[in-house]
């Protein structure tokens, strides 16, 4: 279906009748924020600093709450449906990937609940960033994996492609605003996507890396690349596929909750035993684990590289530790 851009405002208004999240720009960076009725989101933005995962896997999430001194535990309610507008293909694909983990063996009710309640309206990329490398890891500027609906910017209109039943239902609700796509829309889309892909300058072919990783365990590349690492959580917190968390009890007066919050494998405390022993004592081991988790362990368990090539960790690492460069070195060392 086709959505003319003059109908964009009406379209978003219709979506904003329910809960709608879309990127907003603030201080030079975009982030997902709720869109109130009357506001029109602007999709002209570079990728958000914090990935869309934060809406299905919030940084802090209450597991259950209770009163101190009592044993009754109250679970969160059923939650509300929400539409997530303008999600980039990398972020959407990551949500799908992380779902594999959250479905593995035991279902994680919190992630799956939010995932089920969320309709992801994706947006194909037109202007990839300087560090985008999604094609290297099996994605692409118009990949629809993990989305319910894909929008492609064709200049004067958006081409809307339904990916799932949820996306279809969403379109059904706004069908008055849409018109049928012409016969040349598909070719137009092809061209837009091809142009976008052509603008991606960085990349590395990871073929052979997952199988080769165990052989590189003691390779000096880990120490060399981790030397400058500060041990902060930027790369992992901004990674759309990083899903590690910590569980803590928090008390305020007699109200308390057990909640989970993002944690990062780059922190020393992450694996620190209470005895003081740390199985990953330095940043070398922690960096090695981060890359291995994405390019080796996850592949072994779920058959896919847990990196979507969004480039956030490269772009925002305070000391320019570059996963593309690490992979290039790893490949060279194979």
């Amino acid at each position, binding site marked *: 279906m086709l959505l003319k851009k003059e109908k964009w405002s009406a379209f978003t208004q219709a979506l904003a009748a329910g809960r709608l999240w879309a990127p907003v720009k603030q201080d030079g960076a975009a982030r997902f924020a709720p869109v109130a009725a009357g506001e029109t989101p602007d999709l002209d933005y570079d990728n958000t600093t914090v990935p869309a995962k934060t809406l299905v896997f919030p940084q802090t999430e209450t*597991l*259950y709450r*209770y009163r*101190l001194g009592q*044993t009754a*535990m109250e*679970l969160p309610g059923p939650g509300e449906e929400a539409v997530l507008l303008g999600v980039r293909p990398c972020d959407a694909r990551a949500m799908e990937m992380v779902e594999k*983990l*959250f479905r*593995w*063996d*035991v*279902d*994680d*009710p*919190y992630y799956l609940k939010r995932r089920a309640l969320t309709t992801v309206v994706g947006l194909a990329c037109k202007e990839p960033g300087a560090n985008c490398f999604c094609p290297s890891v099996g994605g692409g500027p118009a990949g629809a994996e993990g989305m319910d609906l894909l929008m492609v910017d064709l200049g004067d209109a958006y081409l809307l492609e339904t990916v799932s039943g949820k996306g279809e239902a969403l379109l059904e609700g706004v069908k008055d605003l849409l018109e049928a796509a012409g016969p040349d829309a598909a070719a137009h889309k092809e061209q837009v996507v091809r142009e976008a892909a052509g603008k991606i300058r960085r990349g590395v072919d990871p073929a052979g890396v997952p199988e080769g990783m*165990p052989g590189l*365990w*003691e390779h000096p590349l880990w120490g060399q690349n981790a030397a400058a690492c500060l041990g902060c959580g930027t790369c992992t917190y901004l990674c759309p596929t990083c*899903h*590690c*968390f*910590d*569980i*803590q*009890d928090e*008390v305020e007066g007699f109200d*308390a909750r*057990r909640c*989970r919050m993002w*944690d990062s*494998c780059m922190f020393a405390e*992450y*694996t*620190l*035993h*209470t*005895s003081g*022993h740390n*199985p*990953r*004592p330095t940043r070398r*081991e922690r960096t090695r*684990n981060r890359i*291995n*988790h994405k390019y*080796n*362990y996850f592949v*072994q*368990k779920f058959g896919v590289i847990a990196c979507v090539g969004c480039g956030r960790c490269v772009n925002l690492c305070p000391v320019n530790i570059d996963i593309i460069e690490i992979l290039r070195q790893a490949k060279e060392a194979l």
Partner: protein
Amino acid sequence: MCNANPYLPYTATIEETWFETGGDRPIKTFRVTLDDPAAREGWSHRPGQCAMVGLLGVGESMFCISCSPTEGNFLRFSVMRAGKVTGALHQLEPGDKLTVRGPYGNSFPLGDWRGKKILTVGGGIGQAPLRPVIEYVRANRDDYAGLTMIYGARTSNDLCFKGEFEAMSGCGDLSCHLTIDVAEEGWTRNVGFVPSMLMDLGPSPENTIAVTCGPPIMIRFVLENLKKLGFADEQIYTTLENRMKCGIGKCGRCNAGPLYVCKDGPVFSYAVLKNIPEAFA
């Protein structure tokens, strides 16, 4: 794990507590029963499995269940006072409430070991996961060809379950070898490190399964010595411990290489572990 929400624990009541050891990091054992009768009936664990024990308002930590299901319909945890949660647990007395969720992880394949001789090699608090193995084998003593236990700690006061083992060693179904690192007055048993005691005893690998747990450095030397004694990789089992938060393979931190200790473990045969470089880090 019967709760629909895997993060939601059962409440449980402490029935009995006692100190296993003293010192600045004492070990206290808790005998616990679940409050909900249905949960109590539904609960079943196997030797080697763990459970997440928590205190509302403080936090949760993973502990191995240090009793065998053959001992009765209760749970036992032996906890060393070390950090925030364990410190708070040590304050508890009979009648106090806990939260428990689990059991988590795999277990020792005791069914497959029928007809074999079992050798356990433990050090310090590492004896806690081995205790259910010993109890289980004792309860089904006719199924197994032998049971030998080597257990050591720094001093005689650091030996867990000492009284129990001393009582057991008298009744003939267990050959019990205790050792402490440094000689002390009144100690008539062996003095020396666990790995060297293992060598001194020199158990035959024939039809034997060796199970070891203890501090990482001890495990490393015990494995070395077991290999010297001729044990095949498949005959050696150990149980790992890493920091854990969720217990169900989601939170990510307990991995040793590609294996999640909480799901794929905590019990591993050396045949598996020897290919995991991080396992003995």
